[in-house]
């Protein structure tokens, strides 16, 4: 076989693989093996100034990152309220927010959270936050699922 054929043949192989990749794009992002940071359990609640009482937590609970400056957070808010009404405990983490704006937002729209933590970004960092809103579904102290972006009905359907 001629030497000059090597490159175009490799080119065709790459093309073939590109075509394969193109039609089998993996949309799901891996759930990174993130362990729940201790700061989640040590940081005091904004209102009652007490740390999380782990005995009060069920086997299943939700951690939700939000901010008053975040529009999609407002969009998913009703879903959080619904989850709360079904008795599901949600830990709310207020990400890099102004305190006044945060309080106004909670008062205006309602508080779906069982425990609220104000975060300057360090808890977000340790949990691998991409951006608000972001929701973690925790089962038996392990992260079962992560939803980046606003929650949709399909995401929470099975928990209701």
């Amino acid at each position, binding site marked *: 076989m001629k030497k000059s054929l090597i490159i175009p043949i490799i080119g065709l192989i790459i093309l073939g693989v590109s075509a394969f990749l193109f039609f089998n794009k993996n949309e799901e992002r*891996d759930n*990174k*093996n*993130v362990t729940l940071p201790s700061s989640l359990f040590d940081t005091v609640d904004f209102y009652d100034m007490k740390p999380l009482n782990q005995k009060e937590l069920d086997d299943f609970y939700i951690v939700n990152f939000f901010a008053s400056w975040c529009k999609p957070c407002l969009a998913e808010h009703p879903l959080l309220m619904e989850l709360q009404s079904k008795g599901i405990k949600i830990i709310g983490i207020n*990400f*890099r927010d102004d305190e006044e704006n945060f309080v106004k937002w909670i008062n205006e729209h309602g508080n779906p959270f069982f425990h609220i933590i104000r975060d*300057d*970004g*360090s808890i*977000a*960092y*340790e*949990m*691998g*936050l*991409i*951006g*608000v809103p972001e929701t973690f579904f925790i089962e038996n102290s392990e992260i079962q699922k992560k939803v980046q972006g606003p929650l949709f009905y399909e995401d929470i359907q099975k928990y209701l």
Partner: protein
Amino acid sequence: MKIFKSIYNLFFIIFFSLFINISLANVNQLQDYYKTIRCLVCDGQSIQESDTEFAINLKEQIQKKYDSGMDLKKINQELVNIYGEEISFSPSNNHIILWVLPLLTLVLIFFLVRNKYRKN
């Protein structure tokens, strides 16, 4: 043959000895490090260039850890563990092939050309 071989050898020697020096250069370490961390909510920028909340937060957290004494290697490893390999613009050692390839190419070229000329 003599000339370009000498040029080439000279170039190789100087370049590689300088290259080793590069990794020891210590100018503005933190800012340079930020340039190697990818902003995951941007289109391929590094966190150094981006002003999204994601980038700013990451810069702040890294700064905190750096100031408290953690060295950049540890910070980087932690970052990769949390966010995955894609956060770093410097491919890890799993992808050593990327780093080896250009050097391999150079060596290959050198020998190919040398053999071709031997024939002539």
